[in-house]
């Protein structure tokens, strides 16, 4: 597979996660290649978001190992993992409502630019690098105009764009996107698609998305999950041709 060419950015071995009696992720082994865009498809409740949560250590593993490059991160805390270059966007927008758009991005940019979070003796404004980087990320998603608007006042679609912008500001190596175009109008979805396209190559991207058009256009490889297990894996064309996937996912 493609993985061998560029090396592995992130790999999981035998991941399991149970909620009570229900196994949301069941012995999933998966590898994500460096610099590639790898999509995860699957019906609702397949375990995609749970897999993300495991990879970023937001949830504790029941069993399995996760390797970032050559480092075992299965026991690290989520903030450590984030500092090692794994950034994510959430399926449900997860922004700071009492802050402006720019501040939202700044918080991510400051950490990404190596700012010390305990620096209580200096003004936040005395760190121009973070500010500049935040502005760059905002303009990349076309949010510069509304940078000073309070986030409470944004429409849902704009919140989704902001979510992406924040993720970008983490300046990660690996980006995990959970349904980045959900709730976006065609035009915005198109913009997000272009942004993701431009990120490809720069970063390793893992994406969950129900918009099949976008998945097929962007992905280098696709993994299909159902009921917590991986049911298919391959290039977009292979997946399109897979009968089982057709039935379970597209319903035809």
């Amino acid at each position, binding site marked *: 597979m493609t993985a061998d060419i560029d090396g592995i950015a992130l790999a999981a071995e035998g991941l399991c996660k149970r909620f009570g009696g229900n196994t949301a992720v069941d012995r999933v082994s998966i590898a994500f290649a460096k610099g590639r865009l790898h999509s995860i498809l699957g019906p609702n409740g397949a375990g995609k978001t749970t897999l993300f949560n495991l990879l970023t250590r937001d949830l504790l593993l029941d069993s399995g190992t996760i390797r970032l490059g050559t480092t075992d991160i299965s026991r690290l805390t989520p903030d450590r993992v984030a500092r090692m270059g794994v950034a994510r966007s959430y399926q449900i927008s997860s922004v700071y409502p009492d*802050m402006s758009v720019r501040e939202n991005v700044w918080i991510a940019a400051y950490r990404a630019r190596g700012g010390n979070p305990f*620096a209580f003796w200096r003004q*936040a404004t005395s*760190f121009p690098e973070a500010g500049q980087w935040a502005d760059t990320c905002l303009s990349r998603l076309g949010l510069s105009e509304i940078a000073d608007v309070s986030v409470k006042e944004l429409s849902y679609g704009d919140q989704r764009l902001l979510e992406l912008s924040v993720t970008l500001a983490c300046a990660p190596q690996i980006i995990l996107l959970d349904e980045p175009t959900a709730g976006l109008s065609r035009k915005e979805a198109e913009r997000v698609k272009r942004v993701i396209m431009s990120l490809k190559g720069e970063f390793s991207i893992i994406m969950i998305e129900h918009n099949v058009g976008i998945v097929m256009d962007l992905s280098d490889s696709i993994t299909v999950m159902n009921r917590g297990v991986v049911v298919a894996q391959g290039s977009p064309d292979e997946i399109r041709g897979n009968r089982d996937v057709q039935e379970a996912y597209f319903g035809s």
Partner: protein
Amino acid sequence: MTEESLAASQAIPSVKAGRRTFALLKAFAAIAAVCVLPLVMPINIATEILIYGMFAMATNLLIGTAGLFSFGQAAFFGVGGYAAGYFLAHGWTSLPLVLFMAFASGGLLAAMIGGLIIRRLGIYFMMLTFAFNQLVYYVIYSWHSVTGGEDGLAGIRRPVLDLPLIGSFSFDDNRSLYGLVCVLFLLSIGVLARLVQSPFGLVLAAARQNSRRTISLGYHVPALQLAAYVIAGAVSGVAGALFGMLYRIMPIDSVHWAASAYVVFMVVIGGQRSMLGPVIGAAVFIWLQGLFSLAWTRWPLLLGLFVIIIMTYLPQGLVGLASQRWMRAIKRGARV
């Protein structure tokens, strides 16, 4: 006083020119206000307002900025006061020493308690702070030989500041103690205001709004919150020490959880979203308490009604009211 609003959320976005001079202006206004305070009220009340102002500001670092609803801050106020008081009552009267003791004991206790509870969320955190407050209360209450138990720690002497060359300076006089309290008060305003606008303050504010997101951005949120908890505890400890010096007694009810509730009162009626809100809350609260108690024996009823009315009509507290008025005035001025 000015209707200053140094809310974390305003620190970054627009670094407009003139902001700095404005801030300077506000600082002068604060200093001026502090200087005239003893002219308009008995000096012990003025001193008390500044002490509780400090205490309330420190508490607001937790409540307003970090969103950690602590109902146990009196434990740190009390422990700082008892620690300093113990030294002062037993003949160690060096000012730096006792201030350090208060700062360190408040901070240390906060580090110990905070280390255990900082990961607990919402109402659980609230209840834990309450329970620890009660535990500290019972320890101080029963440790009679050191703390004086229910009689309070009595016999506290005022400290002495030994300056090389100049000689030693005593705070026996109420006016000189007021001076000392003033200096420490302004210092803590400066430090806390700076802190709220710093990256540390911003990230705390971010974690208040969405802690999971903040962690996923690479911040170790519990460590930051613990730091805030310790800072608040240490500053509260100093406030407690000053209180002990003022009345030369450290009363047991200063550690009771009701005292924690009262400081939350001050923060909320003053306004959580600004630096001076809690101070104004403290001033109004203390002043009203005195006023009402002269007016009617059933005065807590008036106090209760006052709080209910403020919360009903002024969502942002007293400072919210002031700044609304002010903004409107500015707009009107601009139109003319």
